[in-house]
């Protein structure tokens, strides 16, 4: 008996070693087979929340590259929108022609840029973006924020460009209010970066609070169907024939960083026609 106790005392650490090694092998075996996944699931339920916090924290450092890839994906999707094309013939064969990409002529092309400077609290606001003539930015390109219309490029240098937002007294965007389908013009009335005015809407039209205001595509700068804002207030103005409509701008100028620039490919052609018309 004493011998046995002596043996256990001597071999105790060997027994522990064997037990631990066998335990490891058993754990490995259970985590490999899907039938006995319970242990792995139990461990995961303990470490999962910790790992999620860690992953969230690490993810924050990778937001920049992820945003860039999302911007690229957005551009690819926006290029496919109907309002980026010159014409879509509504014919009997339109589906077949669509599949062959025959009747689609691209009218608008999209680029993206980042805002490096902006003002929103002055009476003449402007923004500066980090792309210029070298990256193919031209005057009169439309500027979109992720939420809606932001402004128009007014000046271009080699590497930078100036954008005139809606928050500028000279800014005028022709717009349509839906569902009333009345065309008007969006101007910036008050010195408030959240609010603009919609003018030239006849008094008889039915405008409700919350109606959406879109670009109508009559200018050769903005494509049609881009959101400008929603109706906030409707008043019968001093001028008896038109309504005074306040709209909430969709773009929140205080926190936009990435903007999309829309170029009209045929702008010079249309401008030439316009100039000829004036000369005549």
């Amino acid at each position: 008996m004493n011998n046995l106790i002596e043996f256990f005392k001597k071999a105790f650490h060997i027994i522990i070693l064997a037990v631990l090694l066998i335990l490891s092998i058993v754990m490995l075996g259970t985590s490999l087979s899907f039938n006995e996944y319970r242990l792995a699931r139990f461990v995961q339920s303990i470490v999962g929340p910790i790992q999620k916090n860690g992953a969230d924290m690490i993810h924050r450092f990778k937001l920049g590259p992820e945003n860039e890839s999302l911007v690229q994906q957005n551009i690819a999707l926006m290029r496919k929108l109907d309002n980026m094309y010159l014409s879509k013939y509504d014919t009997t064969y339109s589906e077949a022609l669509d599949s062959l990409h025959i009747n689609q002529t691209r009218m608008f092309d999209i680029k993206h840029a980042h805002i490096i400077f902006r003002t929103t609290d002055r009476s003449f606001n402007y923004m500066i973006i980090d792309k210029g003539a070298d990256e193919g930015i031209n005057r009169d390109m439309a500027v979109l924020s992720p939420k809606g219309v932001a402004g128009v490029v007014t000046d271009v240098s080699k590497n930078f460009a100036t954008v005139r937002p809606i928050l500028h007294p000279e800014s005028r965007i022709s717009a349509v209010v839906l569902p009333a389908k009345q065309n008007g013009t969006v101007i910036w009335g008050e010195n408030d970066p959240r609010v603009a005015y919609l003018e030239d809407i006849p008094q008889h039209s039915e405008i409700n609070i919350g109606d959406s205001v879109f670009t109508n595509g009559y200018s050769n700068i903005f494509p049609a169907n881009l959101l400008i804002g929603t109706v906030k207030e409707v008043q019968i103005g001093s001028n008896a024939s038109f309504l005074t409509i306040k709209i909430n701008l969709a773009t929140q100028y205080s926190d936009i960083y990435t903007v999309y620039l829309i170029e009209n490919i045929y702008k010079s052609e249309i401008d030439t026609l316009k100039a000829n018309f004036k000369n005549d």
Partner: protein
Amino acid sequence: MINIISNVLRFLILIIIQIAVCQQINLFGYITPSIYLLALLLLPLELPLSVQYIIGFISGLLVDAFAHTLGVCSFAATLMMFARPYIANFLNGSSENNYEAIDRPIPGVKDFRWIFFYTLALVSFYEISSTLLETMTFKNFGHTFLVILGNTIFTVFVILCTEYIFHPIVKNES
């Protein structure tokens, strides 16, 4: 008492670093340093062997839980703790288990050659067993061997750097 506290603190800090930082490193796609082995290498050799095994097992299990490799690191770390006294004895040139408190891979206590071979032998032992257990196959052994080699070199490098940062060599003026 201070010895116990410092050992426990070192153990916790290194495990946290291993889980939070080293597991996220994927150098060239497959090299991951195992810095928590330093806590095991620095354990006093005069501890009871069973306690050493249990500490190795628990530390491996903690790392396993976060790496989704249940059993791999715990097996390898326990095996490494088993091999540790033999390696230390071999490097000391003695065959008996008469350790002194001084037998620790700390610069200033032991010379660089002792520390280097002690670390290299145990880390390579750990990496070989853990990598083979994880792959469970000898197919494509070239790649497995590369993983073992890369992991061992990188881990030894990191462990030696850490040791020499926290125990700088004091030069004798005499």
